[in-house]
């Protein structure tokens, strides 16, 4: 077993995460916005307010003072918990009842915090509230940097703080009686220099047998956006009740637009579906005008990471949020590089690695760009909207050209590696201080060196070619379509010839030059899911991955425990990742082993329960403990959601052809399953499964063809039909 680190937090408290489309707040549930969590092996403080994907503050605490006595909120907490659209806590101190509400707000991006105090005293109670926080004002994606110098401006209602183009405003409904900077009383005006802490003291007289109230709002992000938002909203700090109600209504409306799943034989999967769906919703982000997507995770991946976004968007298509997918794709492709920009490691056709308002963006991964053609093609299938297909086909063609530039003409294999090094070299002459991570490669396991031809990157390249070919077909660009198809066929041939690892009955992880890299990783399962292997080889790969060195009771490791380089707490060299567990489920279903696939899905569902309704990024390789793990990651929920629809229900939609194929892969012991409200291009579909039968109800604007594997059935709008299903051995 890996020894625990001396100061690692064994079991951190369940975090409180409040989000709006442009902001977030994090706390530990004890009353203040403080949240310490092990990160990269050591405790780190993540509490505070985030706006426009910029960390605005460190921990934000409130202290109450009355008649010479002082308390913080955690010390007098009675109870706390979420309410629709927000989070609240109740405190009792010196005969006072203190009620707190916190709500994340999108515009201006930040948080509203309210304290209401009720007194039973027969005389007035003078109270001082002191609000303490440290400014941060830097994008979350730049890990570990807290600027050393700020500009602070006092205001009648609080303070404004800036660092370059990033800014925050801390305002209150009760003007501060006193300001403190770095622990010293500050007379106000403007200050420029280091700021470790800002404190605002507010005096409130609570009347006899009466109540008093104070509200704060901390908001910010880009100063230019903050100024505009505050100009539009005016000086009033809105009621948390109204703000929370609005947030809750938006969430409810979104949830009502998504399908419902019922699995009477596996209620834990129903619960996991709702958990994963709610988790994905928390990641929705529209941090600035024209910038739409989902953040990768919390706490430290709260930026739009395009690799993660590409993995999440297919789940959104199944949840029916076509509009968010279209807007997200439009955002990402707006940053498709048309020229070589060495400063940002961008090459023509490439899509960014990450996006933050500014706009701040960077290229330089081997796989992010390759993931998008498949998403674009899937969007067209789900929405059936081909009105812009020519433009999309052109954008995908640019990706294919980018990939061709990195491919070996003889083998068709795409070469990766050296991306981070390129950034370092490009910026070498620009600064007297240089930084870098000695990371020679940038696949999904970007701290592992998997050069030159990692198998899963080749699978993505093959899928990119196939998806682009389909879209080019819709765009009637047949010459380019045939070129893509020919290249995909050539690549598939190479993959079939060069990656087989007979001794392990598995696939090599990569090729370094032409030399196979003999390491057992779950990434090989992607070739199974893509259908690139013959059935016997595919089954052998699934069987091998199920062995104990790779699969554990809490998920699938990033590297076999038998590998000499295995380290139980190394991010990509041994830790268990939920996304790898989802790959294993995907591959098991692909080879016709639904019971095994379901077992992996149940493993993921059990993690959600163990994580208190959240979804950790990864766990130690030798025990089911989160380590170096974001507590909510899109990687850990979206693939699970997708598999419920694509593999367990076995659905493939084609809105362009107005058809759907349904080949359920429920275990033989199951008796029923139900899916309600699946959005297709031309309407909504309800399905009820019992062994051998499928009841189809179609509420659409035109007829729908339903392919059940043994026959294609036309279903008229408004019609309900019961269709026969082939028995499992007849599935094709």
């Amino acid at each position, binding site marked *: 077993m890996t020894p625990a680190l001396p100061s690692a937090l064994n079991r951190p408290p369940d975090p409180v995460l409040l989000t709006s489309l442009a902001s977030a707040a994090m706390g530990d549930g004890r009353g203040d916005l403080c949240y310490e969590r092990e990160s990269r092996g050591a405790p780190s403080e993540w509490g505070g307010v985030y706006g426009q994907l910029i960390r605005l503050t460190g921990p934000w605490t409130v202290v109450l003072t009355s008649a010479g006595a002082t308390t913080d909120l955690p010390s007098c907490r009675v109870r706390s918990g979420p309410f629709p659209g927000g989070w609240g806590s109740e405190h009792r101190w010196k005969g006072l009842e203190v009620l707190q509400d916190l709500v994340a707000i999108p515009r201006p991006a930040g948080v509203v915090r309210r304290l209401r105090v009720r007194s039973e005293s027969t005389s007035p109670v003078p109270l001082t509230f002191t609000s303490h926080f440290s400014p941060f004002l830097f994008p979350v994606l730049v890990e570990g*940097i807290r600027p050393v110098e700020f500009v602070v401006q006092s205001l009648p209602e609080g303070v404004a703080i800036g660092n370059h183009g990033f800014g925050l405003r801390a305002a209150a409904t009760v003007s501060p009686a006193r300001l403190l900077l770095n622990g010293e009383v500050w007379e106000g005006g403007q200050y420029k220099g280091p700021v470790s802490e800002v404190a605002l003291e507010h005096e409130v007289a609570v009347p006899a047998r009466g109540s008093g109230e104070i509200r704060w709002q901390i908001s910010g992000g880009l100063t230019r956006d903050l100024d505009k938002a505050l100009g539009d909203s005016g000086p009033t700090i809105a009621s948390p009740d109204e703000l929370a109600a609005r947030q809750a209504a938006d969430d409810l409306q979104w949830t009502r637009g998504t399908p419902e799943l019922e699995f009477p034989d596996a209620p834990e999967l129903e619960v996991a579906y709702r958990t994963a769906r709610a988790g994905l919703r928390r990641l929705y982000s529209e941090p600035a005008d024209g910038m739409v997507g989902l953040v990768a995770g919390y706490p430290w991946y709260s930026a739009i990471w395009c690799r993660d976004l590409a993995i999440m968007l297919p789940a959104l298509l199944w949840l029916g949020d076509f509009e968010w997918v279209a807007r997200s794709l439009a955002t990402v492709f707006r940053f498709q590089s048309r020229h070589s920009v060495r400063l940002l490691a961008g090459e023509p056709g490439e899509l960014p690695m990450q996006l933050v308002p500014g706009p701040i963006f960077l290229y330089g991964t081997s796989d992010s760009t390759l993931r998008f053609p498949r998403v674009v093609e899937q969007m067209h299938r789900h929405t059936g909207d081909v009105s812009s297909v020519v433009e999309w086909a052109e954008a995908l063609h640019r990706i294919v050209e980018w990939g061709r530039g990195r491919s070996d003409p003889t083998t068709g294999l795409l070469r990766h590696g050296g991306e981070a090094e390129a950034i370092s070299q490009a910026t070498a002459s620009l600064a007297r201080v240089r930084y870098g*991570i000695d990371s020679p490669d940038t696949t999904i396991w970007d701290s592992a060196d998997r050069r030159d031809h990692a198998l899963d990157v080749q699978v993505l390249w093959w899928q990119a070619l196939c998806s682009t070919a389909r879209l080019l077909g819709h765009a009637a660009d047949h010459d380019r379509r045939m070129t893509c198809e020919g290249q995909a066929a050539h690549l598939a041939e190479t993959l079939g010839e060069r990656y087989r690892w007979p001794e392990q009955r598995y696939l090599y992880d990569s090729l370094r030059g032409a030399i196979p890299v003999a390491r057992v990783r779950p990434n090989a399962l992607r070739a199974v899911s893509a259908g690139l292997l013959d059935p016997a080889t595919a089954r052998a790969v699934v069987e091998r991955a199920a062995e104990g060195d790779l699969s554990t009771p809490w998920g699938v490791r990033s590297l076999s425990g038998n590998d000499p380089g295995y380290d139980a707490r190394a991010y990509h060299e041994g830790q268990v990742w939920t996304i790898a567990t989802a790959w294993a489920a995907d591959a098991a279903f692909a080879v016709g082993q639904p019971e095994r696939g379901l077992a992996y899905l149940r493993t993921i569902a059990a993690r959600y329960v163990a994580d208190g309704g959240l979804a950790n990024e990864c766990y130690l390789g030798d025990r089911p403990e989160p380590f170096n793990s974001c507590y909510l990651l899109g990687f850990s929920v979206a693939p699970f959601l997708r598999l419920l629809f694509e593999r367990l229900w076995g659905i493939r939609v084609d809105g362009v052809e107005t058809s759907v194929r349904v080949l359920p892969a429920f275990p033989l012991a199951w008796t029923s399953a139900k899916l309600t409200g699946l959005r297709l291009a031309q309407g909504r579909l309800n399905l009820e499964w019992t062994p051998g039968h499928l009841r189809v109800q179609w509420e659409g604007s035109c007829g729908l063809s339903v392919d059940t594997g043994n026959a294609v059935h036309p279903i008229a709008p408004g019609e309900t039909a019961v269709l026969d299903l082939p028995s499992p051995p007849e599935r094709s």
Partner: protein
Amino acid sequence: MAGDAIRLETEFGAHSLEALIWVAETVDASVYAPGSLVRTASGFRFSLANPPLRIGAFSGLRLGVDGTWVPPDSVRVRLGPQGSWRDSVRLSPSNPLELQAGSWTEFEADCPLPAGPGPVTIRLELSNVAIPPLVWMEIHDTMREVAPP
């Protein structure tokens, strides 16, 4: 690089270039404490106001000067000016250097240095316990002389 900047501005607008400069300038001003590279009686020292690029637990570090590594037993580190010095050779996975955003660290090395006013390049490498590839930074600066006590 000028060409890159022009292309960036042309393709993605002036805000993209402006924002890139905000980030670059903040990082430049927020990690290496300007002017902290000082010649001492036995070698040199310098300070960082933030961890370089990555937070977390670091099980090892090494320092180099103009391409030559300082012997590991001659390197010390402490958290903040009041912290206790720790020998770099005693850092390990079970006794790591723990850094979070805003951590102030000071590094000191016993290492004879060539005399002279020219700038030197200091290279610092840190090994994280959770993410294997090391993090590095290079400081190209002129050493200040310590004023006699």
